[in-house]
């Protein structure tokens, strides 16, 4: 993983670009929640279907838990977005981002028979953009894109020195 040789410049550019784009998206998702006064995940969670429906209902039922989830979600998104854009702790950011997106996906997967009252902006059958973004983050996690371009270069140097 630490070996960044053996990649063509094009492979490096594309992976870094993908990381910056997803980072931008996730960072704005986080900030947009900060900017909406009293934003809450309640609307999203109340639409939850499938295997996480019960869990979501439990979150909504307790104001304290809901508040904590809202806080962690917003700041989690912001930190993940910053990590991806800066290329800092890229792997950790990509993995946590992927898990978070996968949880979103599991809350409202476009499976046959599950109907949502919130309209989607595209047409989905089982696979949604959220799932694709989650898998794209897995891809980023298995390539050292932070070492192609990003602050991880210095993190790596620091680690090498201390080892």
């Amino acid at each position: 993983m630490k070996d960044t040789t053996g990649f063509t410049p094009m492979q490096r550019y594309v992976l870094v670009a993908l990381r910056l784009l997803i980072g931008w998206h996730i960072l704005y998702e986080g900030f947009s929640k900060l900017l909406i006064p009293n934003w809450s995940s309640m609307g999203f969670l109340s639409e939850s279907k499938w295997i996480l429906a019960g869990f979501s209902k439990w979150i909504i039922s307790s104001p304290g838990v809901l508040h904590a989830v809202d806080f962690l979600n917003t700041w989690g998104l912001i930190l993940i977005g910053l990590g991806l854009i800066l290329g800092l702790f890229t792997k950790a950011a990509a993995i946590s981002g992927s898990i978070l997106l996968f949880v979103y996906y599991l809350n409202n997967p476009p499976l046959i028979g599950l109907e949502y009252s919130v309209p989607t902006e595209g047409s989905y059958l089982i696979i949604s953009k959220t799932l694709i973004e989650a898998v794209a983050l897995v891809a980023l996690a298995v390539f050292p894109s932070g070492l192609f371009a990003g602050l991880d270069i210095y993190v790596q140097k620091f680690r090498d020195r201390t080892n």
Partner: protein
Amino acid sequence: MEKDIKAKSENEKNMPQESAMKRRTLLKALVGIPVLGVFAFELFRKWTYDHEKRSRVIKELGLENIKAPAVMKSSSSKSDLLRIGLIGYGSRAVSHANGLGYMLPETVEAMKKNDTIKDWLAQEDLNVAITGICDVFDLHAENGLATARSEYRAGGAAPSKLPVKRYMSYQEMLDDKEIDAVMIATPDHHHAPITTAAAKAGKHVYCEKSPAHSEEQLYEMCDTVKNSKIVYQLGHQITQSVIFQQAKDIIKKDILGKITLIETTTNRNTADGAWIRHLDKNGKPKPGDEKSIDWAQWLGHAPKVPFSVDRYYNWTKFFDYDIGLIGQLFTHEFDSVNQLLRIGIPKSVVSSGGIYYWKDNRDMPDVLNCVFEYPDRELTLLYSATLGNSRSRGRVFMGHDASMEIGSAISITADGDSTRYQKQIESGLIDPTVPMVSFNPNRGSIDAVTSATEKYYAARGLTTTTINGVNVDVTYLHIKEWIDCIRNGKTPSANIEKAFEEGVACLMAHKSYVEKRRTEWDPVSRKIV
């Protein structure tokens, strides 16, 4: 100094490759910084745009000064303890007792377990004591006594040390000097006779809707209450919600334009919603028989019929005790509209409907439409009810310039053909296909809705949050208003005059349904014709 620089540059010349590599590494490492810079710039632009759009809509509508009212005013004087008797201790009376700061110990324990007791415990103490319970059913009376004697009190109040007495009839309770005020939560055919007797006995009255079951009873009740010194409050809690204060402001500011149609609805689709309530969870009849229920007293002035669990629990189905949907649910709708627009008594009413879904022994129609005409106000009030479909149709005030839907939140949508908003609609500032303004009591402020999902959630009333707000029970607020008025001699919001208007409107609608004709109000003889 110069030497140093020279040395350095020579050094660099010596190792040009390494230095260039370092620079390239630095550039590569900092690739995110310019991206973040652009992001920050765009975020600021987006925020400014949204903010300006929001405040422009609010400003153009003149809504800047509408704010959530400050937290409830605490009662001015609570020095004198008020002794209250509860007449009828069914499920509605349980809410009354809770509003007064009393709760059955078992319920408190259960609510403690699932962590839902906080809001009730935070409720301000009204300095009242429940000292009398009157119910024809032993089981209900015992629940009432246990509640009144409970150790648990809301607002940090001490348990009442006054004795709690069970009265076997309401007359007995009204004769007792130890009772200052009564709360009536009996089946509807008792409301007016008990209120009249209470007014004669000088007891203040809080009575559940509907006000009266017949014209004669209504007229007698209103005359008696007006000629007495008692404070009367009709039990309509929903207009105590803070959003009704906002709605009043919105109407005052003429945001909606000329209102010519108000649509109110009932949309239910369950057996419980259709007042089939005599069976428990296991499908067995609920408790109660002739031994434990004083059936003759329960019937009162109503025609004598043998005891039945069906009639006892499902009295709403029968016109002998109630006027159906009109008495149970339209009353709330009428009060909502009357509190906002003070429409008063309609000139004419046409009702039509039938028993189409719940094919049991009921008298009350399960699909009903009533049209109330107000030619002087140049508007029509429509009540459309079904017990066979639960599609949410809301409560909508329709004006030439905008429509306002009031539920648990307010949402105002501009009309595509509005004269007032024509320019803003053309410029794109206002989109007539989605709400332009919403007010949600839990969010604390009025808001121009901008983001697409927010618009969607606002339209559905899904934006509700309980993050900062303490939930205050509206029944409590309505009771508090009544008790404050008793103490300071003021008139509560659902006073006898409004109860009269509501009573007449409801009885006109009922008469129209029963007699299958248009009914009118004669303002000279003050009678329904």
